[in-house]
């Protein structure tokens, strides 16, 4: 089962490596991970996407919480209910000739993606949505044009409603 784990932790030497190390040490998988400081520069927030059933995630959550640097851990199973999650995608595509360039542009309009860089033969497209939509967009782009390279940010998520890691 797909699970999103959010971690608020102190920005200390080795803090990120302890979090990542825990996953490898205990045999848990990281599908993707994002990390950045918060508005309080002494804190960082990490979002990890992992696979596992409820009991595995409970174990991971407890072990994460045990790390000395970690202030708060929260996990969310069902992305459609409790959490707003987004992923950013950049995709560099071949865009040669008027027809192809127009087709890609139309596709971007439909998906509300943006063209953020152009050369006479290339586009860089930017798309922000859930991982599921990112997959769909990528598939649609690939059908229109040759994809040169892609990069995805990994999931970044925030809980709906009053629930907050900072409270």
């Amino acid at each position, binding site marked *: 089962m797909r699970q999103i784990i959010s971690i608020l*932790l*102190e920005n200390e*030497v*080795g803090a990120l*490596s*302890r979090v990542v*190390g825990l996953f490898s*040490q205990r045999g848990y998988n990281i599908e993707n991970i994002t990390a950045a400081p918060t508005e309080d520069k002494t804190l960082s927030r990490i979002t990890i996407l992992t696979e596992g059933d409820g009991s595995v995630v*409970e*174990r991971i959550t*407890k*072990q994460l*919480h*045990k790390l*000395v*640097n*970690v*202030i708060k851990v929260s996990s969310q199973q069902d992305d459609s209910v409790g959490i707003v999650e987004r992923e950013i995608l950049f995709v560099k595509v071949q865009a040669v000739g008027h027809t192809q360039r127009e087709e890609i542009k139309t596709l971007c309009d439909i998906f509300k993606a943006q063209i953020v860089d152009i050369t006479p033969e290339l586009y860089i497209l930017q798309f922000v949505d859930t991982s599921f939509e990112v997959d769909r967009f990528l598939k649609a782009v690939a059908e229109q044009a040759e994809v040169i390279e892609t990069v995805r940010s990994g999931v970044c998520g925030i809980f709906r409603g009053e629930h907050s890691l900072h409270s």
Partner: protein
Amino acid sequence: MEKLNGAQQVVRVLEDLGVTRIFGYPGAAVTDIYDELYDSKKIVHTLARHEQGAVHMADGYARSTGKVGVSIVTSGPGATNTVTALATAYGDSIPLVLITGQVSTDLIGTDAFQEVDTMGVTRPVVKYSFLCKKPEDIAINIRKAFYIASTGRKGPVVVDIPKNCQNRAYLFDYDNKSDVHIRSYNPTIFGHKGQIKRAVTELLKAKQPVMLIGGGVVQGEASAEVLQIAKSLNLPVVSTLMGISGYPASDPQYLGMLGMHGLYEANETMHNSDLIFAVGTRFADRATNKVSKFCPNATIIHIDVDPASISKTVTANIPIVGDAKTVLTQILTELKEVDGKPNADINLWWDKINVFKQKHCLDFRKKDGIIRPQEVIQTLSKVCHELGINPYVTTDVGQHQMFTAQYFKFEQPRHFITSGGLGTMGLGFPAAIGAQFANPHDCVICISGDGSFQMNMQELAIVKKYKLPVKVFILDNSVLGMVRQFQTVFYHERYSATNLDGNPNFVKLVEAYDLKGIQITDDANLEEDFKKILLDKDNFTLVDVITDTNTKVMPWLRANGSMVDMMLNDEEK
């Protein structure tokens, strides 16, 4: 504020934290600190002969006293040599602080001489680690290290100090403020009140309860409370390997160790119980056997200071996170409040347990011409008792360790020192040295094997130098007995790499250090021999006891079975 340089701050903060003994080994990256130690009036440094030995000594010091053990080593190989010892302490939740030198900050990352990523190498085997990036970090990080090591679930903490941060030319304010606050680290101490009430209700309701104590009882100083609860409810008490010494062995309610080589009555009582009252144990695989078959009818109350240990393997019905001593005190208060008495059916339960005891699973038959290892431990325990000696006993890992756990009667907490989690051969002897330094007037015995002893025997030099009266008993069967017994039973007696041909003459070995050694080959006068050795209170003795090669540790749980899938080898009787 007083101005001190980095190296001075290291020594001063250790002094201010009450440290009186450090075990270590110098090297290029810590020479400034060693220069300051040279003048310290409060701290005595012991030079080990290997960094692993140094940290094991600090470990033995910590286990026997409850204080934080302190060790200091240099960068690179100094640091990597400590990894096994750190992992040993981590496995058994022992409070240690290890100070490691590091190459200067401008050299970090350049593959400098004796540079290793100490934080990275030690990360999976420590509770926490610090890198002091500037001199001003030193004092506060060492204070934090002590706080983290000695609170919550205890453990080893590393403080890595680059050479240039110790610089003698740079003086700066020494902050002697002693309170430490770490925003992200607040171990739970008090148990949840509702859970305490639920636990007490279940305890009083249970017809076949058992109390299971683990290392948390010893490390958490909760023995008195355990005894009080066991007495007030007439509970049988079973111990894990690490819980041994947490409950007086001579008490009739004590059933001994459970698990892989646990006693028949301990395992049967666990398996047939309807309630397990577990304190400070993590339900390790060696204790439970196959988790899915573990104690099928039992409700489990699990008290532990580490929330991650609760329901990690065995699912707890009533989890209580908190410090063992505090939570048990809360339970005692609640018991008083509800006027808790032993369950009316407890005597029927004791009748069953007494039948289990009739199995006499530890009985063994003597063999002609060769000493049985069980006999050595049993006699040693008996002699200590008769002489009124209450020794600190350390062991290494293997058959001798299990025999000690089974046959030696421990009456007081902290008196049994062994590597339960990591299972480190080589802990016993240096740990005995550490325990002897901490308890100079007490008897310290290291029970080892001929294999294990050779893993850290270089520390004999420390015994010689400080005239430590440690007693070493080697159960010398010329083989790696524990592995060999696996080979006997599961590998058709194919004894691959378990023969210790090439062993030294242990008596001559210690004589090279001007120490006393004797060999015993015959059990005719075992009691008298042991008495003589133990009464020689001021001198070290190594006792090389030649024992039977073919004796197996029994009982023995069958892999993937329940706690009662036990092999009881009757040929031992």
